[in-house]
């Protein structure tokens, strides 16, 4: 007990320091260098006016505008780097927690938001919108893309939920998810066959995943979904813990297994759908981060693991985005490239370790 608490505190301190350091680096680094002193001054001013605004009902709006629009640097800071960083943090955490919930649901460490075909579903609808929508409506707004991704994700989730009523074995359901993913990919390829060059390029760009182009509206919207989602997941800690002993034991302890499973998969899908909608498919965060977190904490108590997983996911994505943005600047890498490069080895090591201890 004491050991766990000590580990928890150490991990929290490390992660918080990493997060703070990552935030500073993220704002500081880039093609336009902004001195740290200026950053702190600008952020302080903006935060002050924002808070005052809240209490006075917008009386300080003009002053806030002035701070934000004062220079090129402040514009880059407030309308590009900060929202992007915030989005990476919020969505990275959501992705990690979504992975944790799915691993709980399937009792399988490689279950992730993308194994169920959620991203493929999103890609399909985005593809349809890009290819066919463009012919009738003309220009497709990014809001429309987000809406399509969301719709596609939820479509696949409903299909999986429908199957989960009939299929009782978790591994079978996993297979069903993978198959739905393939069907969606096939349908997407079908659409591509009829698409114009630049639509294909758009779709390919979207499906690489990126946090670029984030704005404050995205940040607020995703925060409204992900943070309550995190809270909900944390409130489910108790049944999640019991579920680790298997369905039979969970039920005999008083868990309403059917309801619990439905809530669990809906919640994890909502989280990953939100991520996919704003940033496109991002692989391996959902598998690697929960595993790293549990290894650091040396426990699987959900009440501890869930919040720390969120924090780790945020840290992981902030650094991955930083690398994607700055490593080969001005060329920007897809976020998925970076997460896969760091996440996939973790998964391999994890599988090898499981083999040696559990078999």
């Amino acid at each position: 007990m004491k050991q766990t608490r000590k580990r928890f505190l150490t991990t929290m301190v490390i992660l918080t320091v990493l997060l703070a350091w990552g935030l500073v680096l993220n704002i500081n680094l880039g093609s336009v260098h902004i001195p740290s002193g200026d950053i702190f001054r600008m952020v302080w001013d903006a935060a002050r006016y924002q808070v005052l605004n809240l209490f006075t009902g917008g009386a300080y709006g003009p002053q806030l505008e002035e701070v934000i629009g004062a220079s090129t640097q402040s514009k880059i800071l407030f309308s590009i780097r900060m929202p992007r960083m915030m989005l990476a943090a919020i969505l990275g955490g959501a992705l990690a927690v979504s992975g944790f919930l799915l691993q709980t649901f399937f009792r399988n460490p490689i279950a992730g938001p993308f194994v169920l075909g959620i991203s493929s579903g999103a890609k399909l609808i985005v593809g349809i919108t890009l290819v066919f929508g463009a012919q009738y409506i003309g220009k497709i707004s990014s809001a429309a893309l987000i809406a399509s991704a969301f719709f596609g994700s939820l479509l696949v989730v409903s299909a999986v939920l429908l199957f989960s009523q009939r299929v009782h074995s978790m591994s079978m359901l996993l297979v069903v998810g993978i198959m739905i993913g393939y069907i969606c990919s096939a349908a997407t390829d079908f659409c591509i066959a009829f698409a114009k060059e630049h639509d294909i390029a758009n779709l390919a760009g979207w499906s690489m995943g990126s946090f670029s182009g984030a704005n404050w509206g995205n940040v607020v919207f995703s925060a409204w979904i992900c943070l309550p989602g995190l809270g909900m997941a944390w409130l489910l800690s108790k049944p999640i813990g019991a579920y680790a002993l298997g369905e039979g034991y969970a039920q005999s302890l008083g868990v309403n297994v059917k309801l619990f499973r439905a809530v669990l998969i809906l919640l994890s899908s909502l989280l990953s759908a939100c991520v996919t909608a704003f940033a496109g498919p991002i692989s391996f965060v959902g598998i690697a981060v929960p595993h790293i977190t549990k290894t650091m904490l040396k426990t699987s108590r959900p009440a501890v693991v869930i919040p720390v997983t969120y924090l780790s996911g945020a840290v992981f994505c902030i650094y991955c985005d930083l690398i994607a943005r700055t490593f080969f600047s001005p060329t920007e890498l897809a976020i998925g490239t970076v997460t896969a490069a760091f996440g996939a080895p973790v998964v391999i090591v994890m599988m090898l370790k499981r083999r040696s201890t559990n078999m």
Partner: protein
Amino acid sequence: MEYFKTEGLAVGYRGRSLIHDINIGMEKGKILTLIGPNGAGKSTILKTITRHLARIGGTVAIGGKDIQGWSAKEMAGQVAVVLTDRIRPELMTCGEVVAMGRYPYTNAMGKMTAADKEAVLRALQRVHAIELEKQDFSTLSDGQRQRIMLARAICQEPQVIVLDEPTAYLDIRFKIELLDILREMAHEEGTAVVMSLHEIDLASKISDYMVCVKGDTIAAFGTPEEIMKEGVIESLYGLEKGNYNQLYGSVEFGRPEGEPRVFVVAGGGYGTEVYRLLQKWQIPFATGILHENDIDCPVASALSGHVVTAPAFEEMTKEQLEKALEWMQKAGTLIHAGTPIGSTNRVNGQLLELAEEMRFPIYRSAGEWLEAQRQNGHCGAQGAEV
């Protein structure tokens, strides 16, 4: 009054009844055991009692109330289970696994109070596994795992504890320890124990009630004394090529078929080892003269169709001697298992003397006999004719 009771219970899968008219019951503090062959439906009955399976018909009542209408929480407070599911929790200590038993009693976030922690330690103590508290569950042996799962169930403080084959995978020492703990639970805490077992001998020794499950209804329900009658076990398990001894709880393989090839002079337990060796080599044998109450007699009758017996506590007679001589001559060889000759079995002494006079080959052990047969070219390693 019967604390736990089923009436006209029908169980099965997907609305189809496999076993019906299950009427069993027990008082608090008793142990009820289901026995029966693999696939008979023991687990199906237990899962229906624990509501893991929907019942097809009838009632299951605990404390006089049908459990059908109970909430999940009420149920969890009354009934705890030990399942056959092999669980693989990640990074959980045994203490944490056991603490899951407090689930029905803790608050919405599962906060463990001092009383809850106390209950965990008590449960661990009860199964003699207090030293495992901090150990990772995945590092345990089967025997330790099962004790921890039992502790988890105990920690739930149930009125009824349901265990599905709790002794599977366990070695003999752990089997006995586990069943001892269950007996203590029943006697000291008044818990009603419902379980299924494969070990018939242990079942009859530990249970207050036994249920034989076979076919589409239960074959028998009663005290072990009522159930454990001659032939009941053989018919319950469809045991044609083997024998189960009710008195000793020992199991014998089927007897070798054919005309006896050796006569074994035995008695007083000296013969059993020889009989079993001959059975292993598939060599048919005759044996005698045994008193019916001789401890060699059950194994002899199980493994040979040609046993010359004398009624218990009676002198051996001339007729029995002649019968034995006849079988001995038919067999052609003789093993003297080493039984000392005294006043009550002096007829066996006469038999040996006659054999010696007739220059009959007499061997001192089954091994010696087999060696001689090999040298004479009579049989191969497994007793097959050459």
